[in-house]
């Protein structure tokens, strides 16, 4: 029996149906229009029910349903209602993991609604910003040119060639043709203005990005290795990271504050609820006995947890 239910539970379509039941239960209880349902052999859809079905259809941005479409929708509703009642009669809602989790999930959503209702005062927000300023730091930026020494062309001499080129480059400037002629054609740009370290890392790899930010400005340096080979680098300028003023980024600060409130209120609301319960756990949370369970798990029950 448990095996069969376990298999059913893994059936995603059934999961959706069960989710639908869960919504139904919540909806009906909240509306309080039916009270505890009596088991009845009568399934009646009133014209008003049909209008509500049509409303759900229209709310998805479609034209009003044709009478044929409405008949199909009504059939579907009747089917859902019958399966729902049969499932309730069988007690399938009781102790059902999916139903339990869906309801728990809706509670989590409720917490978030609560979090969204509160707005910080200007002072509160500013004080919070000052305490969390480092989270809003704008990363440093670098502007550089590079000469590429390609392993496709030079094989394992690429690094050596780059070193030799550095020796020969002397006082050539950032875009002196004599300097540029020493390197190979690169697949992307040769000049990268105003890039954050993440951007440089996306193009060249993290190691290269780190090195470029530590390279002295105003002269050729290297060789520096990237994921493509070896490079000589001329760093034009480095702008260090900075924290913008509160006024510049108030909207971002507000969003971050709200985000944090969400977590805080979730935690607080749960704590408040939990305090009304006496939670009893075994003293000794020894996992020794559970090893044998793991074997059963591997045999096929894993997906249903």
């Amino acid at each position, binding site marked *: 029996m448990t095996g069969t239910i376990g298999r059913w539970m893994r059936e995603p379509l059934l999961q959706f149906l069960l989710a639908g039941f869960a919504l139904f239960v919540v909806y009906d209880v909240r509306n309080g229009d039916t009270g505890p349902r009596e088991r009845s052999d009568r399934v009646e859809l009133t014209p008003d029910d049909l*209008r509500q079905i049509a409303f759900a259809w229209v709310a998805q*941005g479609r034209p009003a349903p044709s009478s044929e479409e409405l008949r199909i929708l009504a059939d579907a509703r009747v089917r859902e209602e019958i399966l729902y009642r049969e499932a309730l009669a069988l007690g399938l809602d009781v102790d059902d993991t999916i139903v339990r989790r869906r309801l728990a999930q809706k509670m989590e959503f409720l917490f978030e609604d609560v979090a969204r209702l509160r707005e910080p005062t200007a002072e509160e927000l500013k004080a919070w910003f000052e305490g969390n300023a480092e989270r809003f730091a704008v990363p440093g930026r670098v502007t550089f040119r590079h000469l590429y020494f390609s392993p496709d062309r030079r094989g394992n001499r690429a690094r050596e060639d780059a070193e030799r080129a550095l020796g020969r480059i002397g006082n050539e400037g950032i875009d002196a043709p004599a300097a540029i002629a020493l390197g190979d054609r690169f697949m992307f740009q040769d000049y990268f203005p105003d890039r954050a370290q993440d951007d440089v890392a996306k193009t060249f790899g993290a190691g290269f990005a780190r090195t470029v930010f530590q390279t002295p400005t105003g002269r050729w340096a290297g060789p520096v290795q990237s994921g493509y080979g070896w490079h000589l680098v001329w760093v034009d300028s480095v702008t260090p990271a900075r924290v913008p003023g509160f006024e510049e980024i108030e909207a971002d600060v507000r969003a971050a504050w709200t985000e944090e409130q969400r977590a805080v209120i979730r935690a607080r609301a749960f704590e408040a609820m939990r305090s009304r319960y006496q939670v009893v756990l075994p003293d000794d949370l020894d996992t020794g006995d559970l090893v044998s369970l793991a074997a059963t798990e591997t045999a096929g029950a894993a997906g249903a947890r």
Partner: protein
Amino acid sequence: MRMSLRTMIAALGASLVALSAGAEPNPEREAYFGETHVHTSWSLDAFALGNIHTNPGDAYKYFKGEPIKHPLGYDVKIDTPLDWAGVTDHSEYVGVVNMANEPGSPVSKLPEAQPLILKARTKEEMERVALYAINTLAAGPPVKALMSPEIAGSVWKRNVALADEANEPGKFTSFCSYEWTSMPSNMNLHRNIFFKDCAKVPPMPFSALDSFHPGELWDWMDGQRKAGNDLLAISHNANLSDGRMFPTEVDTKGRPIDAAYAASRVRNEPLIEIKQLKGTSETHPLLSPTDEFANFEIMSILLGNPPGRIPHIVGSYARQALKDGVALEDTKGFNPYKFGFGAAADSHNTAVPYRQDNFFGGHTFSDGTIEARMAGTIVGGMFDARTEGTAGLTGVWAEENTRASLFEAMQRKETFAVSGPHIKVRLFGGWEYATSTLADKDWIKTGYAKGVPMGGDLPAPTATAKAPTFIVWAVKDPTSGNLDRIQIVKGWTKSGQSFEKVYDVVWAGDRRADKWTGVVPPIASTVDVEKATYTNTIGAVELKTVWTDPQFDPSLHAFYYARVLEIPTPRWTTIQAAKLGIAPPDVVSPTIQERAWSSPIWYAPSAEARKAAPRGTTVADLTKAGATALSDAQLKALIVQKSVWLQNTVTGEKYMIVYGALGKGGAAKGVTPAQPGYVTQRFPADQGQFEVRYIGRNVAMQSLTGDAVEGSYLGVSRTYTIANGRIVTDLVGTPVEIAVYKAGDKYVAARSNEFGYANYEIVPAVAQLNALEAARP
């Protein structure tokens, strides 16, 4: 002086860039890598599996590079942050209407929402609300207040709000998107729906609870588009569709695949997801037996693993669909399968593993620890965790990193798929590219100016052009393996048959292509399986070439796409086996060649050019000329216990099929003369074996013949039966039926997958297969 001027310009440029929060649009387009398929706790199945705490906002954080929590509580961080993403929680059970009418919900308190709320369950009241919905939501301009995050009273609206919050034009783009989760009879027909912008998304997405028929989804999408809300669908896991993702005969309602179906599908589904955690949908070794790299991260299962069901291979893979598409175009005048490629995750963890060396699974508890994975946990009762692959990504060639620019690129199919690493690939097709084009720094401009990029249709050929030429270019991911080779996969059709061929067009190192076949030998492997390491001492950083189709026939429909292979690197299972000190699993390859796939470019002959193609014989032609179809009895007399020589009149290829005796309901059959106790066969009534012989390894075979070479030289047989006037065979359960017609003194045969053509003739026995006059170059 020049120096300081330059610095000034740079500084000025920098401040301008900072102001516009991103680079100027690049007319030559940039590759932007993004995720089109991920679930958070807001998907009920993910939540039920134990992904409880993270929402779409956390997913966007992860994609931007911040560490987040795996559902098991440990931190996970992406290797290379993405440029864009859309979170696709399941749309089913997102009960907006219910929740909008829920007393006390934030929605119900909004003045703008009042007209949506039923004051009573009366006819008049329903009518009023419905009218309001029709006039305001469907027809009129969107009500701003209802679209704003404050009223996010439903999961869908919150999803939209979080996508808007994460969106930073020029830096990171997040889309409004969701998954339509249709799976009738466990056949995966899922689609991810992407909206061009979030301002006009409907109050409630169209879910599979509304309809599981793709056709009805497309109708709904057409309606949305008409209302000014552009959107597109990306199908995924064709490999799990039980053959139903790419039908050639009837749709899910049993209606014929016709021009209207094709138009609707092409209008709404420009892209397919070709690779994800649950396998690859490019092709399968049984569909592409001559493609030595077809066996890549194959997973053939059905969702929910229904007992007693063996998934169909035919109809479940993209390359065959592209081939069927051009065949349909040629024979019936419409092509439902003109799609581009992307790849994605389908992780249910909010976070996504893209790399072999950072693989943490995609299904919470069942594959969230190295022990669970390497113990071969059967995830969801469906598949061995060790056979799961890394997530793929979609590369998009767009002018800038914004919703509009990326969406338009997806619509024109200028996209490519990667198996995980950020490999970049470009493909241009045209008639005028010089072989020296790539030596020019401005070759990309030439690519666009004189041809079309991936996803496009070749323009009409120039007067002097003999064959189309392709510029193909790829660069490795700087944090991953070097490149092995680029291949061009070509598919074409003739007389209802379709064919494919994989060309090696440019490769690393000094390997030489085989003189006769053009096939490039495998690259060496630097992988140390025991230590799970590799080095980039082989392979190339960049590969590029200009390639001309050497076997072009201007009268035939065709398509071309590029496939880029990395050098072999250790698969995640090998890395984690080394960590545990156990043997690498024997259920997967210890190494992997990561790859990229460009979207195809299509060629369609002009009406004039098409006339040059041989007319071919159709069943209708035969019937009209008085030919008669053989009955079961006539078929039995013709082939049973005979060795029949056939000629494929399209390719000219001749081969033999040996049809064994038909069984007698499981009764044992011995050899004649009898040798007591030696049973040679025990088949059900009217079922027997057949075996194909003399097929060469380099012959381009027509579709759905399975591995004919294996049959020819290893003696492998399959089963056949005769029923309803057909010789019935199958390819992994999909029937392939042959009808035979007597036309004058000839026997002509038609296969059921060749769109009405009769392409086979019974011919006299062949004495020699390789006439030397023809074999000499």
